[in-house]
């Protein structure tokens, strides 16, 4: 699966979305299911509703629930992305509904065809592709591939010679962070880190004999990104994240996120995040973490306006659900 940011990458390399849709290679995904210790959680890319005057929607929702006394309702009941997404029921949502809806979406891509399309693009841009045969680049007696720079893309590492740590660039070897274990369990993470690595490498490319600074920077950025992914993985896998005594030392940024969200409903972001605040919100919410209070700025909206806003969101959600059911 490819996250919404992947579309930017496609634009950069000249792979239009229309072509992927037409060839049947891509299906839209609005709310992938993340595995967790308490069962799968729908994590929509789009927020449930837009912020109002800088205040995130969930604060208004919490205020509304306090007014309505409706303890049974759930914030994500109102998510248009979940209502549209196939993962809740009747097959993939229709492309026209998704494109019209204006919500952030990712792509479920048919691997073989997608790889074929990328291969064609690479060849057209001058890449030499020699499937199966390493040719001049055959591994030496240590199993090392020949070349000025070897980029390791899969979990199976070649050779017995100098190896780069997952996600690092050193000694003429660059290992894509998709070899990190948790990237394969979190939908979209694997491809996202590959795209980020490609961008970062292009941004830092330098003559190989003279690139120590660039290598250090590349590795530093990749490692920070890997930590953010590991944070999400830990949040999902820990049996009771709020009660974790180890997060403060093993995942300090996650510990901060949980503490602040529980205290006042804010989601602090770190440098080099992979997941967006709406995704963190959905993941924390799905793991049962709730704010003890909402932002008092949400009180600035007149009560009647708040009630009408929530009612209109509910109507929109119902319309989307009905549309899905008739497909």
């Amino acid at each position, binding site marked *: 699966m490819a996250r919404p940011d992947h579309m930017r990458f496609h634009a950069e390399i000249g792979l239009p979305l229309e072509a992927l849709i037409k060839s049947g290679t891509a299906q839209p995904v609005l709310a992938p299911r993340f595995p967790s210790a308490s069962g799968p959680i729908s994590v929509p890319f789009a927020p449930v509703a837009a912020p109002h005057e800088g205040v995130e929607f969930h604060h208004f929702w919490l205020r509304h629930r306090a007014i309505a006394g409706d303890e049974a309702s759930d914030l994500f009941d109102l998510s248009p992305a979940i209502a549209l997404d196939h993962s809740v029921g009747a097959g993939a949502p229709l492309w026209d509904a998704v494109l019209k809806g204006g919500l952030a979406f990712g792509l479920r891509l048919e691997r073989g065809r997608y790889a074929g399309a990328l291969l064609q693009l690479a060849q057209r841009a001058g890449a030499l592709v020699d499937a199966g045969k390493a040719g001049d680049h055959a591994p030496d007696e240590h199993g090392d591939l020949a070349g000025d720079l070897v980029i390791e893309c899969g979990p199976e590492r070649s050779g017995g010679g100098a190896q780069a740590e997952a996600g690092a660039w050193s000694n003429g070897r660059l290992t894509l962070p998709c070899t990190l274990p948790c990237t394969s369990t979190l939908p979209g993470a694997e491809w996202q880190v590959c795209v980020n690595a490609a961008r970062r490498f292009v941004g*830092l490319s330098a003559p190989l004999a003279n690139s120590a*600074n660039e290598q250090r920077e590349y590795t530093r950025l990749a490692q920070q990104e890997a930590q953010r992914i590991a944070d999400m993985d830990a949040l999902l896998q820990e049996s009771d994240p709020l009660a974790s005594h180890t997060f403060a030392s093993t995942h300090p940024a996650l510990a901060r996120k949980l503490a602040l969200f529980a205290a006042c409903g804010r989601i602090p972001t770190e440098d080099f995040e992979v997941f967006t605040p709406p995704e963190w919100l959905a993941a924390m919410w799905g793991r049962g973490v709730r704010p003890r209070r909402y*932002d008092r700025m949400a009180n600035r909206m007149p009560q009647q306006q708040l009630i009408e806003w929530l009612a209109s969101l509910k109507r929109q959600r119902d319309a989307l659900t009905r549309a899905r059911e008739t497909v």
Partner: protein
Amino acid sequence: MKDANIKRIVIAGGGTAGWMMAAALSKVLGAKGAGGAGIEVTLVESEAIGTVGVGEATIPAIMKFNAQLGIDEHEFMRATQATYKLGIEFRDWGAIGESYFHPFGRIGFDLEGIDFHQFWARLKHLGDSNGLDAYSLNTRAAYASKFVRPEPAHGQVINQMGYAFHFDASLYAAFLRRFAEGHGAHRIEGRIEHVEQDGETGLVRALKLDRDRTIEGDLFIDCTGFRGLLIGQAMGADYHDWSHWLPCNRAVAIACERAGDPVPYTRSTAREAGWQWRIPLQHRTGNGYVYCDDFLTPEKAEAVLLDNLDGAPVSNPNHLRFQTGHRAQFWAGNCVAIGLSSGFLEPLESTSIHLIQMGIAKLIALFPGTRDAPVERAEYNRLMEDDFRHVRDFLILHYKATSRKDAPFWDQVRMMEIPDTLTQKIELLRSRGRFFKYDAELFDLTSWLAVAEGQGWGPQGHSPAADRLSESNVRQSLANMRSVYAKTIDAMPSHQAYLDKYCKAAGETLRADAA
């Protein structure tokens, strides 16, 4: 859900920090605000003590603050004798006799998704003599003394411009005072004599004023300037000293008559033991010499400043002492320090008012539900420290990247050890113009590049990606850009004409109370 119990906010101090805070809080949380979140905002200040009297140059982020308050820009400019600021001219920083411009806004246009400066660096190493200035609309407009406010309808060239303001600090505080009082904030004139704390929790309960008055509150904002009456003296928050990296610790400021039409930029001239600022306003020019007293006496600094004014002085010299650094805790207990009480980074890039703005925005975002809010407090402190650290590193670059060997002060800063993170950043930029911005970082590639290049530490190579276009193609594209910028500048009104048309302050009175 526990009901929020902060009902009364007390702001101690009525300088720029205090009144910015009062304006923002009364607008978004005050009793008269939309929906009436109903918080009472009280500000205590002492006219007898007065304000620091400096702080007149800003950066473009201030626009966001004004927009959030709903301030009309032209009205604000008229009220504060303001001029526009397109950047800062640095003289004698890299070497005596050299100068460069640090512009706001963008430099050049990217080509095929590759950063503009990579192409510029490629041509530079092929011998092309066009500097970054040739591709900055801000720099060209500044030196031509032109200005127009970018509007969406102006198209992408003019919208590359960024701007900020120079204003009279005391008029700015007065302007914000009217705004805050109009939104329900109360002002109390008086001297704070004692800070009353809860014996058990240490939280501040009240301010004791002269004439036996007591002002109680739930949340206290310390805007008492360098004194730090609440955060330092009462709450005991330590100070992290950064003067080993930024050794200037004194300043002398003075206002003088304006000489000719005000130019739309600040000037910073490096001197023997620090640097001198010149800030042109509509009615006068603000000047000051920031220096390190290990290398220069206050008397000598004052004499150098007086020798280097554009016009006759219109105020008395204002001598100030400071220590670069910040409080270990910006927010301690139920007291949040904003402005000079929270820390100070010398005014080389006009960042202090911005840091006030950052403090206000973060406090509103993390506004506590109860008097003691340890989680919100910890996050606030972490974020503010990040902000200070990022600005600090950019300031250090100005001192480190110099080849001046004419005075002991410059020897010291040229040879000082700098933070590792900054070394890595500078090396990346110097080798091939690479730059990765942290989320909270204020200054972007344009700023780092302009200063590094201006002081002789610019990129020595370029990204191989910039070789993707043929040399002739790159030369042509960059020549086109220069010609577009030149035509755009030709069509702009002069800065003075723009001020006259939209922002002319009433009366030409010279104010002598601020430099």
